[in-house]
């Protein structure tokens, strides 16, 4: 199976472009995050005045709009449209951010598919490709979350930040040229086991970030002077908690499935289904921590902040398993292809 170098080069270009587009999207989301909530607050105040003036008694924004337009059309332009423009401009930045993110996802996907076509195998045979796939899943998961909870759109900057960092690290330090995989990886389990690991790890990034934001927001709520700049713009704790929980609940069974498939593959490749190889061990530790998260969330006194801490620890373990175990320790899972 020769490697198609042209396709491989196109894949690299897509990868770099996708990363740049994510950075651009981050800028747009950052603008929304910075001005969005403030703009919304500013509209809220004049709106009350307006209601008093028009005396229509309507508090519903839907009926408010024609009324304000009518006033605006009559003569002097009131403050309201200007204030609303700030909000809508921030929202427009957010929507453009989403559009850019979608474009980034398409290029990101193209980079992955082209890698697969270039090497005639699944495009997750070394650490560079694995990270590329994990990041893709993380962004897709976030887009799905956005569909369910449109109000958290301005948080995208916090989700894209680790993604961009990972993509940068992947593209610079972990880059591996397109090549076939060694015999140990030539198995259909590479498709099943590794894709389950990729999907669950990518999904775990979202609750990890949401839980960090939860902790920031929580600090802020118990002491408003802390994280005042950032936390003031964050949604309520319950929203962040729900985003974390619902994503974790979907990712956890996939992760379990991935570990199980890994055990089945290990039985065929290494002669035992479980042998406490460093990768297996840390995967087990992360599994136990996420299990603890699910239990904590159903236990009085452990909900909220402790549960968020546990979720962050779980994601930290996933990242640790990816970097430390692949690059520092020597185990059977040494397929990073780095160096």
């Amino acid at each position, binding site marked *: *199976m020769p490697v198609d170098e042209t396709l491989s080069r196109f894949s690299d270009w897509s990868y770099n472009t996708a990363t740049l587009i994510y950075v651009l999207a981050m800028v747009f989301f950052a603008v929304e995050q910075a001005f969005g909530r403030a703009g919304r607050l500013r509209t809220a105040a004049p709106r009350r005045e307006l209601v008093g003036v028009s005396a229509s008694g309507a508090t519903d924004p839907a009926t408010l709009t024609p009324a304000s337009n009518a006033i605006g059309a009559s003569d002097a332009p009131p403050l309201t449209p200007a204030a609303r423009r700030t909000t809508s401009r921030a929202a427009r930045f957010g929507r453009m951010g989403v559009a850019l993110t979608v474009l980034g996802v398409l290029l990101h996907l193209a980079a992955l598919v082209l890698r697969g076509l270039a090497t005639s195998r699944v495009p997750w045979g070394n650490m560079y490709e694995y990270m590329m796939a994990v990041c893709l899943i993380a962004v897709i998961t976030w887009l799905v979350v956005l569909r369910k909870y449109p109000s958290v759109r301005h948080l995208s900057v916090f989700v894209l930040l680790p993604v961009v960092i990972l993509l940068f690290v992947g593209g610079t330090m972990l880059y591996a040229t397109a*090549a*076939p995989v*060694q*015999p*140990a990886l*030539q*198995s259909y*389990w590479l498709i099943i086991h590794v894709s389950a690991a990729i999907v669950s790890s990518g999904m775990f990034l979202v609750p990890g970030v949401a839980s960090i934001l939860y902790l920031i927001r929580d600090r802020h709520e118990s002491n408003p002077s802390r994280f005042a700049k950032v936390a003031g713009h964050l949604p309520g704790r319950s929203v962040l908690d*729900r985003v974390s*929980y*619902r994503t974790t*609940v*979907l990712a*956890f*069974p996939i992760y*379990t*499935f991935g570990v*199980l498939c890994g*055990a*089945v*593959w290990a*039985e*065929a*490749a*290494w*002669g*035992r*289904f*479980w*042998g*406490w*190889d*460093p990768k297996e*061990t*840390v995967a*087990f*530790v992360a599994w*136990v*921590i996420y*299990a*603890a998260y*699910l*239990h*904590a*969330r*159903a*236990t009085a*006194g*452990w909900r909220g902040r402790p549960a968020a801490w546990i979720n962050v620890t779980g994601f930290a373990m996933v990242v640790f398993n990816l970097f430390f*175990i692949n690059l520092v*320790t020597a*185990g059977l899972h040494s397929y990073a292809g780095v160096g």
Partner: protein
Amino acid sequence: MTEQEQQPYRATPARRALAFVRNTWRGLTSMRTALILLFLLALAAMPGAMLPQRSLNEPKVQQYIAEHGWWGELLDDLGFFAVYGSVWFSAIYLLLMISLVGCLVPRSGEYVRSMRARPVLTPRNLSRLPHHATGAVASDADDVLAAARSRLKGWRSSERDEGEGVRSISAEKGYLRETGNLLFHFAMLGLIVAFAIGKMFSYEGQVIVHADGSEFCNSGIYAYDSFNPGLRVDGTGLNPFCVRVNDFQPTYTDIGQPLQYRADLEYSSGAELASNTWRPYQLAVNEPLRTAGDRVYLLGHGFAPVFTVTFPNGEKRTQATQWRPADQTTLLSDGATKFDPPGITDSEKRRENQLAITGLFAPTPVFHGKILSSGGPRLTDPAVAVDVMKGDLGIDSGYGQSIFSIDQSQVEKGALERVARENLRVGESVTLDDGTEISFEGVQRWVSLQVSHDPTQLWVLGFAVAMLVGLALSLLVKRRRVWVRVVPDGEGRTVVEVGGLARTDQAGYGDEFDEIAADLLNQDTRSP
């Protein structure tokens, strides 16, 4: 103690002991304890990933201990190099298992009761529920109830007459959540037990077999190079089978990256052994041979250079001893091929004339001056760089020695000395001062096989699958209740009240409830 008379409860030692046991049990089976034990389990498992482990890499453990002095020895004493068999690790998971059982037993009882019980009574005030809708419909109570019954098909429901014509249905759905939850936890218990039993009766053995038609038979521990038995395995009564390795072919890319390893086998197991029936098998990585309840794996491969020694008296001896790959990518190998001089019966004299050919083997030789290294794993005009050692190899010393090396202490003692150093290609030879001629004849391949036996691994798989199914059910099924109350208003219309409650903290019941309520309230005739 002075107030003893006033207390109706007397803390006799027996009672105190009982209270202690009860409180311990309660403490142990509480969720808080279970959570803490889970964290301890995670924490205790980590050293296994951070420190070298005996079960994976004994030499690395020795090296670590040597490098870290008292700290290494302390870690060793505390079992940090065999974490998963250590007392503390076992204690944590045993406590966790007890905690789990203590949690599961009462929950199972509750589960059985709830599966038999009728859905709970309709609350008096449905408007207090998180989901609520009310309205009047222009049909009589019977029709509304009939509609509700058919709408709530698949729900467990129960109808009650609350008097004065008021009737209600309470319905509940999502019982599979608890079923899945219990299934998950019981399957996990089963998995741990099966895993533990498997560890007792399993064994693993490694052996190197030359790929020239040599045979390996699973007849006992002696047949293996290394053997790791479970606690209850004494090495007798192993499953009978034999394997013959006829050939081994690796394929590589142009730059020497391996593409495929494949060994041509023949095997014979059980009754076939008596009839000498052999069946072919292509052994490859990821495709173990499964026979007689055991599995045979292809772990690695390497080279065995063939040397012929022509002794001064004209006698010839040929040997092909496996050398071990020192570099896995280029397969540069090192080793020691050892010869006993023939025709010498006096052991003293024999020990002065033993020979060892040690050094490096390169499948694709690259010479930097006279230094040999390997340019790749393919066999292209291979070469060896050998030191010929003569003297006492120390084989008769009573100590075991590695097949891959000579005993360096013999060299240090001066009992073994170097008599030649030469780079040889196939067909070349070197002659020693005493007329002994050593020729490099060629090279053979060998494969390293692993035989594994684990009688419970299918059980473990079954429990693992059950865990997964249980987990998915318990996380994704929503347990929810709905109540419908109908109150005839005496004018042919019926006031319908619907209330709903999700019993899990997962959001998402709202939409389903709204649909049910809309269907029952028949939107069009809804009164404000």
